[in-house]
C-alpha cells in the first residue's frame, strides 16, 4: 500500500502518543487486583468498627495487613489516577487547562498515595 503521507510528516512522527494500550491495560490490571484488595479493606474496616485505638494499631501493624494495605494503596491509587485522567481528557477544554489539571491529578495521586504508604509503614515498623 502506498503511503500517502509526505516525507516530512513521516519524519515528524506525529500521531498518537502510543501509550493508549498501556493505559487501557493497566486500568484493567489494577481493576482486577482491586477486587480482592477492596474486599479485604472493607472487611478490615467492618471488623474494626468500634474498636479502640490500641486494637486498630495492633491490627494495622500485622505484616500481612500491612502488605495488603500497601497493595491496595498502590493498585487503587494507580487505578484512580488513570481513571481521573480519562475524565479530565473528556471534559477539560483547552490545552493549558487540561495540562494543569492533569498535573494536579498526578500530584494529588502521589500525595495521597505516599501519605497512606508512609502511615502504613510507620504502623508496620512500630509507630
Amino acid at each position: 500500500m502506498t503511503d500517502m503521507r509526505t516525507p516530512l510528516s513521516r519524519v515528524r512522527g506525529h500521531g498518537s502518543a502510543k501509550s493508549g494500550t498501556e493505559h487501557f491495560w493497566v486500568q484493567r490490571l489494577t481493576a482486577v487486583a482491586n477486587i480482592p484488595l477492596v474486599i479485604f479493606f472493607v472487611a478490615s474496616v467492618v471488623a474494626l468498627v468500634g474498636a479502640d485505638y490500641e486494637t486498630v494499631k495492633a491490627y494495622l501493624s500485622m505484616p500481612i495487613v500491612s502488605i495488603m494495605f500497601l497493595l491496595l494503596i498502590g493498585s487503587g491509587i494507580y487505578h484512580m489516577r488513570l481513571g481521573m485522567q480519562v475524565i479530565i481528557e473528556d471534559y477539560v477544554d483547552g490545552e493549558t487547562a487540561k495540562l494543569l489539571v492533569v498535573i494536579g491529578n498526578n500530584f494529588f495521586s502521589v500525595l495521597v498515595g505516599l501519605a497512606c504508604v508512609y502511615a502504613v509503614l510507620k504502623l508496620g515498623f512500630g509507630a
Partner: protein
Amino acid sequence: MAETPARNRPLYRPLSPHLGIYRPMLTMVLSIVHRITGGALYFGTLLLAWWLVAAATGPEAYAVVQEAATSWIGRFVLFGYTWALIHHLLGGLRHFFWDLGTGFDLGTVEWVARLTVVGSVVLTVLVWVLAYTMAGAL
C-alpha cells in the same frame, strides 16, 4: 499531513447529538454513575489517608477521626462511600465481561444492569448490618 488549524480561528464541524436528546436508559445512567462513583472514590481516598495517618500519629489524632466517622454526617458520608465503592466494583465486573466479549445481547445487558443496582444496595446494607453487629449495636 494536514496543517494544525490556527488556534484563533474556530473550526465549525458538525457535532453528533449529545446526551440530552436520548431517552434515559438504565445502562446509560449506570455508565454515568460508574464515572461519578469513580470520581467520588478518587476524593474518598483522602478519608483513607486521614484514617491511616491518624492511626500512625497517635490516640488523640485517631480519636478525632473516630468522632468524625461516628457522627451523623460522618456515617452518611461513609454509607455513601461504601455504596460508591461497591457500585463501582460491580460496574467494573460488568466491564470485565464486556472486555472478554460476552454479555452483549440486550436481554443480558439489561438484567445485569438491574443486578448491579440491586446488588450494590443489598451489599451496602449487608456491610453496614455487619458493621453495626461488630460494634455491638445490633
